[in-house]
């Protein structure tokens, strides 16, 4: 049942053997050890497994590993720059106290990367909508919104 797929993960081309039934979340966790990809429901309800596929945020639990053939996938492990500096969004999450248990955090950060990548500034209400696919039970979203708002402002403002 294993099949080889070629894709780019966090900037590095790789070839991995995946079970045809695997979701991308399973492939990233099991074949590549990228455990930042969290599983909170495995049916597309919580957003914890969000990664970027060719720049778009997707629920990797709902995305077959095979579909990632030839695509470029980014997880939070891939956000650090060469000198190990954190991405501005990661810094904003720390500084705004947007992290509590941390289980929703990697997924939210990946959605924030997508949002910031649009190159524009958003209102708080727009951000609420854009982040509404992520469930967080710890923060009430207040500091997450503050963090994303700050990152958007710093990068695109």
């Amino acid at each position, binding site marked *: 049942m294993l099949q080889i797929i070629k894709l780019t993960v966090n900037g590095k081309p790789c070839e991995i053997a995946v079970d045809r*039934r695997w979701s991308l979340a399973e492939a990233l*966790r*099991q074949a590549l050890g*990228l*455990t*930042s990809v*969290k*599983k*909170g*429901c*495995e*049916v597309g*309800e*919580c957003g*914890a497994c969000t990664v970027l596929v060719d720049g778009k945020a997707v629920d990797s639990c709902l995305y077959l590993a095979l579909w990632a053939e030839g695509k470029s996938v980014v*997880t*939070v*492990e891939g*956000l*650090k720059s060469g000198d190990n500096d*954190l991405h501005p969004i*990661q810094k904003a*999450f*720390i*500084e705004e*106290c947007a*992290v*509590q*248990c*941390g*289980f*929703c*955090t*990697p997924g939210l*950060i990946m959605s924030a990367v997508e949002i910031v990548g649009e190159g524009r500034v958003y209102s*708080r209400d727009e*951000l*609420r*909508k854009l*982040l*509404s*696919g*992520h*469930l*967080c*039970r*710890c*923060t*009430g*979203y*207040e*500091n*997450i*919104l503050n963090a994303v708002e700050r990152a958007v402002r710093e990068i695109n403002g």
Partner: protein
Amino acid sequence: MAYPDIIGKSVPRVDARDKVTGAAKYTADLCPANALVARVLHSTVAHGLVRAVDISEAEKVPGVEKIVTCFDVPDIGFPTAGHPWSTEISHQDIGDRRLLNRHVRYIGDDVAAVVAVDEVAAARALRLIRVEYEELPAYTDVSSALAPDALPLHEEVSDSNIVKQHIYEAGDLDAVRSRADLRHFRHTYRTQPAQHCHIESATSFAWMEGGKICVVCSTQIPHIMRRVIGQALGLPWGSIRVIKPYIGGGFGNKQDVLYEPLNAYLSYIMGGACVRLEISREEVFTSTRQRHAEELDYQAWVDDKGRLMGRDVLVLAQNGAYASHGHAICANSSTVLRDIYNDELATRTEAKTVYTNTGTAGAMRGYGIPQACFAAECMMDDIALELGMDPIEIRKLNMMRPGFVDPGTGIACNSYGLADCIEKGRELSRWDEKRARYAKPQSGNIRRGIGMGIFTYKTGVYPISLETASARLVLNEDGTAQLQLGATEIGQGGDTVFCQMAAAASGLDFERIHIVSFQDTDTAPFDTGAYASRQTYVTGKAIKKCGELFRQKLTERAAARFHRPAEELTVAGDRIADRSGATVVTLADLAEDAFYALDGSEHITAEVTSHCTDNTFAFGCCFAEVEVDLALGRVKVLDLINVHDSGTLINPALAAAQVEGGMSMGLGYALSEEMLYNGEGRLLNGTLLDYKLPTALDVPDLKAEFVVTDDPTGPFGNKALGEPPAIPVAPAIRNAVLQATGVAFNELPLEPKRLVAAFSERGLI
């Protein structure tokens, strides 16, 4: 009191960097890839006896290694509550659980388990297991379970379905009842079953090594977990080793032992092979724990000034199929009623916890207080409305005052910020102005109102249970130190404030303290874990004592090496200084010498136990401004403010973050969250899509505020913080809706269907 500067400083979380980079490891991240996979077969009937389990087809599925049924597991009853163990038999938790059950008591109960090489094989096998049940009558609500002819769910515990009940009486209530000059109020308030919804499921894996069963699991209570696994398997407690990595939220669900004993057992019978048991989100909903649905039949007698003369409250808690925390939560609901408000003449509370054929209720953030507080705060506004009083004034007349001592528990009000919290909330919410504005007659489809609610919350469990915590500081060769605790980081920020406290007490720089975040019961000092908002208070006392001892050991070493009197020396960040502030030796040099001196090496460590015999009340309030769309039955929260007295704040930014999270949980409880069961006891909305916890779109900007007090019993003036924020939000919103619409909703949640029905009944739409 003046505390060292690190107390009250909003340092960033010590675990934040690892959590934003993906370096932080949670249970599932640590499981070996080749672990066997276990899945559980759940009961499809709400109440019955398993007559037979046919596994013959399931066993043929390729990849299936083992199937165990309720007929195979040891017949040992064990408790699951995350309570400290009691050495007195009469105070021990009810042991009504089995690893798998022949007598199934709810839809979702555990009948059999499959161990297979992968998920697919396990899932296929589950589908092929045939179970034959002899069905028994199912009691899916409290009243049917209490019917005189109802069969007891747990004969060995009780000959009725009452898990436990108790009555508290003070004063002559009959005299109050008979007074014609008093106004009598009677309402029934109902709260719904709700769930924690930690985003990480309940998950574990287990293997055997060195003659021990090792269990890595997502838990708030590693040491209690070890004990319960030992009890469940009939093995010595020391032969179990529990490891707790980072956890993706708990909120009380993981203050219970869930599937970890079954996981340990499955590894045990597989000869110690590594077995993973990760339940699905749907199983988390049906088969873990939930917040008790409670019904409070609430009577109050007041004089014409609004003074409570007497109350008589019956609290009924729906406990579901197993005891879990037993009567403790319902008892807590009833106790708080006499704490938060005081009756001039008489108080009576009666509390009953009832088994039903539904999912098991257990601990959830607030431990019975959100339910009681909803009723108490609704009643206050209902009385205020009748008497034409301001809700704040009637509360001030009746609420707890400084110097209060609970007559049953002896817990005293040692520090008091309640009145100031209310005043602060009043100002921030512009209460007087808005309350007056919205009191004017409103017409049209959109109505506005403002409401509030208050609460009190204890800090830890003394004297109801043991309170104990231990801490260890271990010097490194470079003059930094490890802090080791049995207390757990569960997302609340515990590790960060523990480091702040250790720095304050030892004199070391904050940056020099490294917390060992993971607990391994083989090496972590004993602590009962994260619950009852106890850790900054109870564990904090242990850290303080430990830090002081560590400081003393460091100065003694310096004194001996440099021939100076120890009492002249102290630890000052990165060095030992004398009274003039001059450096005697750096900690790095002192440590190197301590480890490697040829004329006397010493590994400097400090380890203490703090046996806590204190408790204290935290306070707070919520102010909510709402806009109600009558036709849509929709409540939009325009403004939400919580003001808390949690004593001294160790880390104000983290404290505010904790409050915001609690407020959103309270908001969901108020407006949308409810576990819906049908008449057969089947959960209808057990997914994160159908169970409506708030998303970023549902939450307004949250305002978390504090009144800082200095509690003399807290290690650094601090008291409970973690759970309280979830408590006052629902009644504040309900009371705001009452002002906006004139309709008193006595049942949660305030969801559109309920609202539209009530508004049409009253001719508002």
